[in-house]
Structures are given as C-alpha cells and as structure tokens.
C-alpha cells in the first residue's frame, strides 16, 4: 500500500505545488473566474433540473414515470461517459505516459504501478462527470424531499458506479493491448473515436427527440413511455445505482442499501480480478507499447497540393502543420467525433416536422434559421477550441525552432491562422447552408447567414489563435487539452460574448426586414437607419475581433518566448 501511495505522491504534489505557484495576484483572478464559471454551470444545471422535474410533477399519472425514466437515462448516460473517459485515460496513463519508463525502473511490482495508475485514472475520469451531474440528483431531492439519507446513498452509489466503470474500462484496455499488435496500440485511439461516432449517432437516433413535437405520434409516444417504465438489465452497474437512488428517493432505505451492497460486491470482485489480470499482462503490455508505432497513414513522401505559390518559409510551416496534424492519430478520434456531431446536427433539421407545427411555418423556418446561426457558431467555438486554440502549444518543446529561425512571430501566427481559417470556414458554411436548405429559408436569411459566417469565423479563429498564443503550454504532454485551461475558458467566454453581441445587434433589424417582406410593407426611414447602424456596428466588432486578439497573442507570446517587453 505504501508503494502505491508513494507512486501517487508526485501527481498530487505537482497539483499542490502548481496551485501554490499560481496563487499570486494573477492566479487569484484565475481561480475566481474558474470557480465562478463552475458555480454558475452547477446553478444552471440545478435550475434546469428543477424546471423539468416541476413540469413532470404537474402531469398526472405519467409524471413520476417520466421523472424516473429520466433518472434512469441520466444514470445510463453517466455510466457510458464514465466508461468512455476511463478507456481514454487508462490507455494514455497505463501505456503511453512519458514517465512509465522511470516508474517501471523502480523496485516495485508492476501490479502496484498498475493500481496507482488506475486510481489516478479513476479520479481523473470521474470527478468532473460526478460533480457536474450532482445538481440533477439535488433536483430530485428537492422535488421529492426524501430526507438526508437520499444524498448519502446517492453519493455512495455514484462513487461505486465510477469505480465499476473504471474497472470495466481498465479491463477493456488491458485486453485490447494484449490483442492488438504492439505497433498498432496508438491506432486504438482512431478506433475508439470511430466507435464513439457510431455510438453517439445510433443512441441519438434511437431517442428520436423530434417525435415529442409531433402531435400525431403523441398517442404512440404514450405507449413508448409505458414501455419505458419496464426495468433495464439487472446485470448492469448502472441499474444497481438507479435502483439504489430510486429506493432512497422513495425513502425505502433498506432496499437502497441492498442495491448498494450488490454494487459494492461487484466492485470488490472485479477489483480482485483486475489486480490478478494486471499482474499477468500489464508489464508485457507496457513493453509492447514502447515499440515504435506503425502508422495508418505511413511516412511515405507526399506533397501538399497548392502550396507551390507560397514563399518558402510560409510553405515550410504550412506543410509541417498539415503533415503533423494528419500523422497524429490521436487527432483522428476527434475528427470522427466532429463528423458525428455534424451529421446529427444536420440530420435533425431534416426530420423536424415543421409543417405540422401550430406556429406559422414561414416564421418558424426563419426564426429557426436565426437560432441555427447561433447554434452553428457555438459548434464553431467548440471546434476552434479543440484544434486552433492549441495550435501554438502544439509546437511543444520544438518551439526553439521557431525562436531560432529567421521568421517573424507575427508571420508565424498569421500562418497558423490561415491554415485553420479555410477548413473552419468551409465547415461552418456547410453547417449553415445545409441546415438552411433543409429549413427552406427565404433568400435574405440565406445571404445573411452566409455573410455572418464569413465575418464571424475569422473573429472566433483570431480569438482562438490569439488567446492560445497568450496562454501557451509548450511543456504539456497533451496540448490538445489546453482548451480546459484558464486561457481556454477565457477563449470560450469571449467567443460566446462576441457571437452573442453580433447576433443580438442583428436580431431587431432581421425581424423588421422579415416582417416588412411578409406583410409587404415598406420600411420606415428610422427603421432603415437603425438597420444600417446595427449592421455596421456588427461589422466593426467582427473586424476588430479579427485583428486585435492575434496582436494581443503575439505581444504576450513575444514576452514569453524572447522575454521582450513591447
């Protein structure tokens, strides 16, 4: 046990030391921002849960069935999220981490190293999922008032669920490493991404949420809900967790403890099994993972087309960026995920039963198009955050090459900017134009959406590249995760603010123009002036947001890299 604690010490000491180092005056602002964001998200989730549960409680007979079904769906979702995040974490922590060689050179049994890593994986994969789903359970406690033991039972059940998910995840990873050839271990990420794509797509399509807005299928939906009240498989850890929480909710404490004991016995039994398996296969797996990787897309010489006209330093950076991106297999899982999100996003517009809606269709279509613009831009923020924000940090320790070569930092940043601009622009235009075609919007809305995209994408990207440069993490083992840092949060908040302001500035004028079109009434002079000022204001904000963040990022990066104060 002492060995395991010792192996865990560096991780927790590092967190403590980092916290101490950043607790200066600037650090305090960071903590305040992060904590207030966390609290507002928590509060928001609690508010939404209470609203939904209050609404359900007003529906006679069906209310409880719906509330309990929702609880079961929440727990199954938590369980699947936990398993997936545990698999990803276990693969990198158990087999691919940089410090593995060091710890395996120590006189410690490999199963103990496994246990220390597994504890770390469990905590890392679970704390956020559990913390941010707690408001849902607090919401249930609020509405059903089952007493204090409900909270205790919920927390114990969730902890057991997290440990169970982590055990299952570790077994799957160990089995995969045994089966998959050594040189293909890193390729596992690609298959994980692909399986997540399929899982997400299928699960979302099975739910078919659009049926809820279609009155014709509502009677069928009642049957659907009736069928939902049947219990899930009794062999799933999520079912034991659900049964325990449900019993606690109904104040049936003894029954709740019975289900907790089932979950506990599972966790303990599987716990012994994984230690046993780890003792047999873990070290061999680590040795296999040290073998150099064979690639899905080999290192064969390939030329990037259309780069011939660029000056040679620019071409060098563009080609390096593209080759590095496509040869990094961890990026592929993310690409599949984005593919899934886009397919689901566009497909949902296809199946919207607009013609059966009680609201006048043409209004609804154009209102949805406007709303869709906002939503698509939030997808843009997520993708920019994942790919463009870490673009500067992705240079990693090789940043000395940029520092020592004859190229301006300004050019370097704008090159990164333009590399990401075209894919992001095309992607957002596909989202916007595709959904607008499915919504059959009027030509004005189509043109407005496209113009907005053309001006907003450069702004969001500038925020991504600029703030990514202002808050880089060159020493991070996984720079792609830097979007969850302070700089990443700042990027997301400022981007949302930017999009919000631009959309709000246009909302009034768009309503005026559409109304005048539908009612065939000409616009008054005052209205035209207002429309003009709003659109010019939005345009100015877009232009400033395109220029200023990159400049700010360059200034900060210059200070960080060269210690130059300008």
């Amino acid at each position, binding site marked *: 046990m002492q060995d395991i604690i010792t192996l865990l010490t560096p991780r927790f000491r590092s967190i403590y030391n980092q916290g101490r180092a950043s607790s200066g005056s600037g650090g305090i602002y960071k903590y305040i921002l992060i904590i207030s964001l966390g609290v507002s998200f928590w509060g928001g989730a609690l508010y939404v849960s209470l609203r939904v549960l209050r609404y359900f409680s007003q529906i006679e007979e069906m209310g409880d069935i719906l509330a309990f079904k929702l609880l079961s769906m929440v727990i199954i979702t938590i369980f699947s999220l936990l398993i997936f995040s545990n698999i990803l974490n276990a693969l990198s922590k158990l087999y691919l981490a940089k410090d593995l060689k060091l710890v395996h050179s120590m006189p410690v049994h490999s199963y103990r190293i496994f246990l220390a890593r597994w504890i770390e994986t469990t905590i890392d994969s679970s704390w956020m999922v559990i913390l941010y789903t707690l408001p849902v359970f607090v919401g249930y406690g609020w509405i059903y008032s089952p007493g204090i033991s409900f909270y205790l039972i919920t927390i114990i059940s969730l902890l057991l669920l997290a440990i169970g998910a982590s055990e299952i995840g570790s077994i799957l990873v160990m089995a995969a490493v045994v089966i998959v050839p050594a040189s293909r271990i890193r390729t596992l990420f690609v298959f994980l991404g692909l399986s997540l794509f399929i899982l997400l797509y299928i699960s979302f399509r099975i739910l078919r949420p659009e049926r809820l807005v279609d009155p014709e299928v509502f009677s069928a939906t009642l049957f659907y809900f009736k069928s939902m009240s049947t219990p899930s498989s009794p062999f799933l850890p999520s079912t034991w967790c659900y049964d325990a929480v449900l019993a606690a909710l109904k104040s049936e404490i003894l029954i709740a403890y019975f289900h907790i004991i089932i979950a506990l016995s599972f966790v303990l039994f599987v716990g012994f099994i994984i230690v046993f398996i780890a003792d047999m296969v873990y070290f061999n797996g680590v040795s296999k993972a040290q073998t*150099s*990787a064979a*690639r899905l897309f080999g*290192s*064969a*010489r390939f030329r990037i087309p259309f780069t011939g006209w660029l*000056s*040679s*330093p620019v*071409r*060098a*950076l563009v*080609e*390096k960026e593209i*080759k*590095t991106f496509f*040869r*990094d297999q961890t990026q592929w899982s993310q690409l599949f995920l984005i593919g899934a999100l886009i397919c689901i996003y566009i497909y949902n517009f296809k199946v919207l039963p607009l013609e059966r809606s009680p609201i006048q269709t043409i209004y609804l279509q154009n209102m949805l198009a406007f709303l869709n613009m906002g939503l698509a831009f939030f997808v843009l923020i997520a993708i920019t955050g994942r790919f463009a924000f870490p673009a500067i940090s992705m240079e*990693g*320790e*090789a940043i*000395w*090459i940029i*520092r*020592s*070569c*004859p*190229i*301006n930092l300004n050019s370097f940043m704008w090159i990164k900017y333009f590399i990401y601009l075209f894919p992001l622009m095309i992607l957002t235009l596909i989202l916007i134009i595709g959904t607008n075609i499915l919504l059959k919007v009027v030509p004005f809305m189509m043109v407005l959406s496209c113009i907005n995209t053309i001006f907003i994408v450069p702004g969001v990207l500038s925020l991504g590249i600029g703030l990514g440069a202002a808050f880089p993490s060159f020493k991070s083992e996984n720079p792609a995760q830097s979007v969850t840092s302070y700089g990443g949060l700042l990027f997301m908040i400022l981007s949302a603010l930017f999009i919000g302001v631009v959309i709000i500035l246009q909302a009034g004028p768009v309503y005026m123009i559409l109304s005048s079109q539908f009612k065939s009434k000409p616009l008054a002079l005052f209205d035209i002036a207002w429309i003009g000022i709003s659109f010019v204001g939005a345009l100015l904000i877009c232009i400033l947001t395109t220029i200023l963040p990159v400049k700010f990022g360059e200034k900060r990066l210059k200070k960080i*890299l*060269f*210690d*130059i104060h300008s």
Partner: protein
Amino acid sequence: MIEIKDLTKQYGKLTAVDNLTLSIPAGEIFGFIGPNGAGKTTTISMIAGLLAPTSGSVEICGIDMLKEPKQAKQNIGYIPDRPYIYEKLTAIEFLQFTADLFSMTNSMTKEEFRQRAESQLKIFSLLDWADALIESFSHGMKQRLIMAAALIHEPKVLVVDEPMVGLDPSAIKMVKQMLIELADSGTTIFMSTHTLKIAEDVCDRIGVIHKGRLIAKGSVKELKQQAVLKRQAKNQQHENGDNVDLEQLFMMLTESEQI
C-alpha cells in the same frame, strides 16, 4: 563575426549574465565553459536570438540581433542541447522544412536540394533513415539530425549548446573533425560544453563563465599560464610541477571565485 557588447540578462533580482563583452572573428572556434547555472545557455540563447538581453547587444556578421533578428538569424545555425523536433516529420522532411525556413530552396531545384540533403544525412550516418518518422529515432539520432539541419543552409556562424550530449564515441569524433573543418572554411563557431577535453581539443579560445561573469578568456595555452601564475601567487605545490590541465584550471578558477 560575433560581437558581444556589455551583454546583461536579469531574471528579477538574479543576474544570469553580467556585462559580457566578447569578439569572435571569422573561422574561430570559441569554447564557453562553466559550472551548471553559470549562464552558458542564457548567453547562447541571446546570441542565437532566442532571448532578448536586459541590456547590451549582440551582432552577427555586423547585424544587430535585437534590431534585425530575421536578418541576423539568417546567418546562424543553432544546435540546442536537447533534441526536441517535430516527431511526425521524416528526417528529409525536417531538412526540407529547415531549408525552406532559411529560404535556401528558392535558389535550388528539388533535385539539387535532395542531393544536398542526402549528402548531409550521409555525413551524419542518417541516410538509411531519410524517410523514417523522427519519433522512431534515438536521442543521438535526433541530435545528429538537428546538426545536419543546422548546417543545411551553410551558416556563417554556428552556435552550439552542449554538442556531444547523447552522441556515441564515433559520432563525437566525427563532430569534432567536422567543427574543425567548418572553422577552417571560415565558419565562426560558438560552443558551450561541459566536456573540457573537447574544448581543449577543438577550441581556438576558451571563455570561462561563472555566476554570469566572464572570469577568464584566452587560448588553452594562455589559460594554463594564467593558472600557473595564480598557483604561484598562492604558493600551492602540485605533483606535476607547474603543468595543469584544463580540468584543474577550471576547478581552480571556479573554486577561487566561490571563495
């Protein structure tokens, strides 16, 4: 070729490099030695344009590094002490990348570049791995590749931080020979090292830095004479009479400074 004037670098209250002045002519190999934390890497970083000085200046081939970094860097080949490079590129792609950054491929056809790159890889015994991804390279192979890349644009000044770290004996011998040949052809070399034997073997002049200050400078012979004088002043006896090697000299200089 390298003119350093009153170069100072401060990190808060700590003075990492203190008022350093040096002039290194074309074709000279200047060795920079000193204990850990003496300010060697900070000095090298300022010469290579990786770090801005707090005060003072660095000129490379008459170009001020602070005022015209792009032009100054065009004349430098820099070899860092730790071989971090883009792991997802192949060796030849990394050479192409470096050559493009230094705009040297503008004046060459693809075939000419390929020939030059391959001859460079051959010198560093990497030709067989030309199309292999760098992530599969050992530490020493990456170090050799960085050397090949630093020389691909035929720089007038070579700035090297700990050149022999991670190299095997035959590579060390080859690098020593190569440094001497480069200097003979007119390249100025500024090199920091912990390996005093290497400094003694290849350097025309050596500077000893300690706590940010240059405490001794001269050829190996001159430094040895200085050491002898110091010893005589302190009336120290030595089993080898007045013969001191560079290691003893280094210890004497840095220890006496510590006292």
